[in-house]
């Protein structure tokens, strides 16, 4: 117990939030993060891809309120995609743990303490939020979206045996070194990226734990993914099924 307390004091959490046209959402999100993470050392790294709606102005205003050392703006000139946004944010992370979450409030900061607690209790390398267990759930999806999601999960579980119940969710906490290792070997983009990350991590033998989260579909702003998601998904699945996953030395993790 005492050891845990000490750990809690010296751990630092870098929360990477990619944004594209999320000016209202990012402000609400930052408020909620500060509300729910009171006695934790953390920084928020916003990776904004030159949003035309003025997201960056809002972030500067938030820096005035909360401090430039707590909210870091690490912008890129134009929309370069989600996967590389994480890599970019990671380069600037100073914590020993990294949290990845969306800006659109589908990932509620009230779950952050349970991620952190789960990690401290189990020593896991990755804690991933899952919507498909008791205590979890989704709100605001139509039948089509539910059908796609279930179909995708059944297919992926039958073919990949990932050992994680929610493959496409992206609300996760990583040991920084683990994220660096996993992310450097990922090649896919968009929707499949989240799945590739967790499947690779599980293949590499990292200790993964789950916590239930609820997911409320975005209230403000518009979705940046979409399009031929199903085709992309099937391609990604085939790719993950066929490629080699080299067994790397993971002793550095222990």
């Amino acid at each position, binding site marked *: 117990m005492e050891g845990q307390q000490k750990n809690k004091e010296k751990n630092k959490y870098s929360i990477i939030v990619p944004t594209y046209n999320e*000016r*209202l959402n990012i*402000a*609400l999100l930052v*408020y*909620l993060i500060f509300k729910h993470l009171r006695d934790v050392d953390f920084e928020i790294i916003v990776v904004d891809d030159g949003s035309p*709606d003025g997201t960056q*102005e*809002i972030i500067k*205003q*938030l820096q*005035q*309120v909360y401090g430039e050392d707590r909210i870091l703006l690490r912008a890129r000139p134009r929309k370069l995609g989600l996967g590389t946004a994480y890599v970019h944010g990671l380069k600037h992370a100073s914590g020993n743990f990294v949290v990845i979450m969306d800006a659109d*409030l589908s990932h*509620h900061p009230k779950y952050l303490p349970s991620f952190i607690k789960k990690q401290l209790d189990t020593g896991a390398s990755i804690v991933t939020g899952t*919507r*498909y*267990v*008791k205590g*979890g*759930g*989704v*709100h*605001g999806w139509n039948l089509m979206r*539910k*059908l796609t999601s*279930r*179909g995708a*999960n*059944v*297919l992926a579980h*039958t*073919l*990949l*045996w990932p050992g994680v119940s929610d493959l496409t969710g992206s609300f996760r906490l990583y040991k920084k070194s683990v994220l660096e290792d996993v992310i450097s070997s990922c090649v896919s983009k968009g929707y499949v990226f989240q799945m590739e990350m967790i499947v690779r991590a599980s*293949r590499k033998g990292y200790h993964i734990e789950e916590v239930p989260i*609820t997911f*409320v579909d975005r*209230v*403000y*702003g518009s979705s940046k993914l979409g399009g031929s998601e199903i085709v992309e998904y099937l391609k990604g699945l085939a790719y*993950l*099924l*066929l*490629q*080699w*996953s080299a*067994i790397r030395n993971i002793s550095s993790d222990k």
Partner: protein
Amino acid sequence: MKHIIKIITLLVAISAFWIGLLQASVIPSSHTWLLPIYFIVSLGCYGLLMVGVGLMRFPTCPQEALLLQQDIVEAKDFLKQKGVDVGGSD
């Protein structure tokens, strides 16, 4: 290990079992010939069943949407006070 190899191994094991059945002819071979078709059909049924069960049991959380609305109001109030521009842009 290449994951696909595990799956192929599984398939090979099942085929070997099937060929064994053919050779041994414990059951009439006309039935044995149909087994792969049964196998594929039942695999498909399993998939559909899992998706169906998943859909019926899909966990929803309408109360969370309400809680989020409260959080949004609270956050907007606070941020407005602090001079962050949270009006209008939705």
